[in-house]
């Protein structure tokens, strides 16, 4: 889902080989479920479709994966972790606000502009999509050389502490940051109703950040001169934020950095992060063959999985695999089977239609609709097709009626904020749009309307309706009534007409259509005020009815 920007030269550097961009577009990028949407000079815009693979949302992650498929480096990537000796003390006070953090240090970085760009992009995408707009996970990266450990993760009252937020020059109180800093305005809601705000602060009183809002301008500024960084991820669940931390440190490792662990102390319980010990899973060889439909041996599976950066070994009927814990997407054997298929190449599998004999059958209502359609066309009516989404204005106000209708909570336009409960307004809009087209105009529509129905599971019900509208210099009740007569006669449906009061039509020129003692529709000459509302200047006679009621 996220679209990321990657420099071709940078990707080549990370891969260690030259790239044929066309080949990458046609083949290579498929290995990371990517689609190159645009190439401009050196920059590619890549849509990474998998929302469950945040580890692929940067040039570093893509390069690591492609090295496997290009057979430059296969199997599970190896990462060494040294001890930094740094501690982060987690104060009990954060429990109510933002309870968890995991941290790491990465040293000996040589970051160029592109590396900085990638780091920021990865941080943003992970926080936004994976971290639910910083709620589930927010990442902070700091200049480690400006920090004196141990670091404290605690809370302060809004007016108890001042610091200079990133991009600003003056010290601000915490509540001022929330109301005045652009990031405070954007993410402040995440700290709404809190009496104290979370703060990372070092042993000499330098503020690192107020997560998940903003870093300090002093420690939280990272550029090409930064050699060593401290990274923290804050959120609500350890397993969730650990994935984000793993993604960040392993990406920086691709830039030549060395990963160092941090001791995060939760009162009595200490954890050492990052934890990059492999995860384990199994896949049954026969299941893999059965799902993919290809004849493949265990050894071939192992080869393909190693290209997808898994460690794999054959253990009789199953393949045992190991993979890096930044992978968040493996829940079932199927997830590993898909890796085999992708490595194998979808386009190298010979497609084969399912050989199953079944009897086709259309819905009764579609069959019924077709009969009505056939007669309407025979009567010289033009079929129209309109949206089921429409405006309240059109279906209520303009029609001189009120009613309980199905309404959208988040419309993008007032033209489309309700579902139609009648086909007539859509037909009238159509006629209104065609005032300058040759008359007579005779139209019909067959489509679903949606009505509120408390008895239904969804509190609404779809009904299949037919509408017919006629307009000309002189047209009226008689004309539409003979159309109805022909439709019903040709379908062998007995009906009667009863006088009806309906504000949409002229009084005394409106009837209800009755079949088997039940009203199924309305017919009449459209009221001149309705015509005025739709800016129609010629008389319109019309009908609509529920044809679902006529199903045998």
């Amino acid at each position, binding site marked *: 889902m996220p679209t990321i920007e990657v420099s071709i030269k940078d990707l080549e550097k990370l891969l260690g080989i030259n790239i044929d961009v066309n080949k990458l577009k046609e083949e290579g990028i498929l290995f990371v479920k990517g689609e190159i949407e645009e190439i401009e000079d050196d920059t590619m815009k890549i849509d990474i479709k998998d929302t469950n693979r945040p580890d692929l949302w940067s040039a570093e992650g893509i390069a690591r994966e492609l090295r496997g498929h290009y057979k430059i480096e296969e199997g599970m990537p190896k990462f060494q972790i040294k001890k930094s000796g740094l501690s982060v003390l987690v104060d009990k006070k954060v429990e109510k606000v933002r309870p968890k953090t995991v941290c790491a240090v990465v040293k000996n970085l040589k970051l160029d502009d592109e590396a900085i760009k990638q780091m920021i992009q990865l941080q943003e995408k992970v926080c936004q999509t994976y971290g639910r707009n910083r709620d589930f996970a927010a990442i902070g990266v700091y200049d480690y050389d400006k920090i004196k450990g141990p670091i404290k993760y605690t809370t302060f009252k809004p007016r108890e502490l001042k610091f200079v937020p990133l991009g600003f020059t003056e010290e601000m109180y915490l509540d001022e940051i929330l109301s005045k800093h652009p990031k405070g305005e954007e993410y402040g809601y995440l700290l709404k109703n809190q009496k104290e705000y979370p703060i990372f602060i070092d042993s000499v009183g330098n503020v690192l950040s107020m997560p998940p809002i903003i870093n300090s301008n002093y420690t939280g500024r990272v550029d090409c001169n930064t050699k060593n960084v401290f990274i923290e991820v804050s959120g609500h669940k350890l397993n969730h934020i650990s994935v984000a931390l793993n993604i960040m440190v392993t990406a920086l490792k691709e830039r030549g950095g060395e990963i160092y662990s941090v001791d995060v102390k939760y009162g009595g319980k200490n954890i050492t992060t990052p934890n990059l010990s492999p995860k384990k899973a199994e896949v049954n060889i026969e299941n893999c063959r059965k799902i993919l439909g290809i004849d493949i041996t265990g050894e071939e599976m192992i080869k393909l999985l190693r290209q997808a950066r898994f460690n794999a070994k054959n253990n009789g009927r199953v393949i045992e695999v190991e993979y890096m814990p930044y992978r968040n997407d493996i829940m079932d054997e199927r997830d590993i089977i898909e890796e085999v298929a992708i490595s194998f190449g979808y386009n190298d599998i010979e497609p084969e*239609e399912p050989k199953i004999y079944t009897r086709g059958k259309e819905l009764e209502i579609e069959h019924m609709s077709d009969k009505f359609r056939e007669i309407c066309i*025979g009567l010289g009516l033009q079929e129209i097709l309109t*949206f089921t989404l429409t405006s309240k204005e059109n279906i209520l106000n303009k029609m001189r009626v009120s009613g*309980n209708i199905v309404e959208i*909570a988040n419309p993008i336009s007032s033209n*489309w904020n309700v579902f139609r409960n009648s086909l007539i307004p859509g037909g009238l809009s159509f006629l209104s*749009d065609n005032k300058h087209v040759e008359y007579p105009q005779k139209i019909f529509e067959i489509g679903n309307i949606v009505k509120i129905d408390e008895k239904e599971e969804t509190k609404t019900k779809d009904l299949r309706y037919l509408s017919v509208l006629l307009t000309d210099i002189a047209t009226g009740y008689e004309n539409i009534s003979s159309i109805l007569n022909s439709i019903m006669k040709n379908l062998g449906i007995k009906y009667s007409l009863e006088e009806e009061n309906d504000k949409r039509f002229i009084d005394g020129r409106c009837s209800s259509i009755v079949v088997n003692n039940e009203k199924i529709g309305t017919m009449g000459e459209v009221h001149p005020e309705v015509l005025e509302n739709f800016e129609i200047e010629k008389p319109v006679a019309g009908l609509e009815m529920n044809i679902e009621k006529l199903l045998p």
Partner: protein
Amino acid sequence: MYELTGEGKKYLEKGLPEIVLLKEIEKENEIKELKKKFPNFNIALQWAKKNKWIKIDKGKVILVKKPSRYDISESLKRISKGEDIEKEQRDILLKRGLIKEIRESIEKKAKEFIGKEITNLDPSLIKTGMWRKVKFKKYNVKATGKPLYPGKIHPYQKFILNVRRKLIELGFKEMTGPTIETEFWNFDALFQPQNHPARDWTDTYSLKNPEYGELPDKKIVEAVKKSHEKSWNYMWDEKKAKKLMPRAHDTAISPRYLSRGVEVPGKYFSLVRCYRPDVVDTSHLIEFNQLGGFVIGEDMTLKNLLGMLKMFATEFGKAKEIKFFPDYYPFTEPSVQISIKNKNLGWVELAGAGIFRRELTEPLGINVPVIAWGIGLDRLAMFALEINDIRELFTNDLKWLRNSKVL
């Protein structure tokens, strides 16, 4: 041309016997008595009965309803004025001996054309054989005729009907579901976690009125909840699942059918409108048609899925070149996208597909592979109708509709 016979003239003046009878029975309705008084009683009775104005009960004539207007009387009047009447009426009057053809008038009329160059071939010329004595004016037959506007099916509707027919031919059974769905069927039953980017896979509309629907059978709800909590590691919220929304994708229909029980092996499809709050432009609508479905069977494989997609590409997309791309959907694994080569646009996405995850099928009581697919029908229709702007599919342009080719 026709004129009234003597009898016709009499009835014009005094009224047709069946009309007279209706007046008569107000005073006297015993058949025995009426027969005595009324010379044309049998004719009157026959027609009044045929018109369902009266019925006979115990030797009496009983009024059923009085006609407000009687076509035969009207026709008699019109003939007397020298007007023409419909054939059906003319035949009745001829059969009742109330009118006759004016032979002389026909000949008189035909004679006027003799030796002349005529435009219309008058019926009098054919009847009298005098067409032999006239010249026919030559027309400019090369001029094209004035256009008429026949009643026509909407071109997009026609396309949709063709697709539906094709699927039925291929052995698929049609499914449908409500336009307004619960999030349960649109998302939860499809294994899309409630608070996770996977649910943003598509941005969706929600409803202001009505807001909440009901959940299905407890057994299914419990199984879905368990599957979510186990795999996605969060607390599943029943209330969120009850929220109503316009169906965002066609796939919302499949779990309903799977949970109700389907034929195994079986093939199913649905073709419905779906809704997403997009910015409307040349390639996006907020309301669009999706075609989707599944094939269920013990031996279904990815290979079969690719085979089916390839067939769709040939049948619906007239594609010569196709290509498969690995893809991601929260509810399928493996997942695949098929694209077809369009001569103007290059690779164009045709369908998304995959094998339903076990985390989805097992809570619904299904333990065999289900290969599922979804096609954006609007894009395909644009190719077929040679349209470049998606908005034209639902155009209000009557001129365009009148001039569109029949598919």
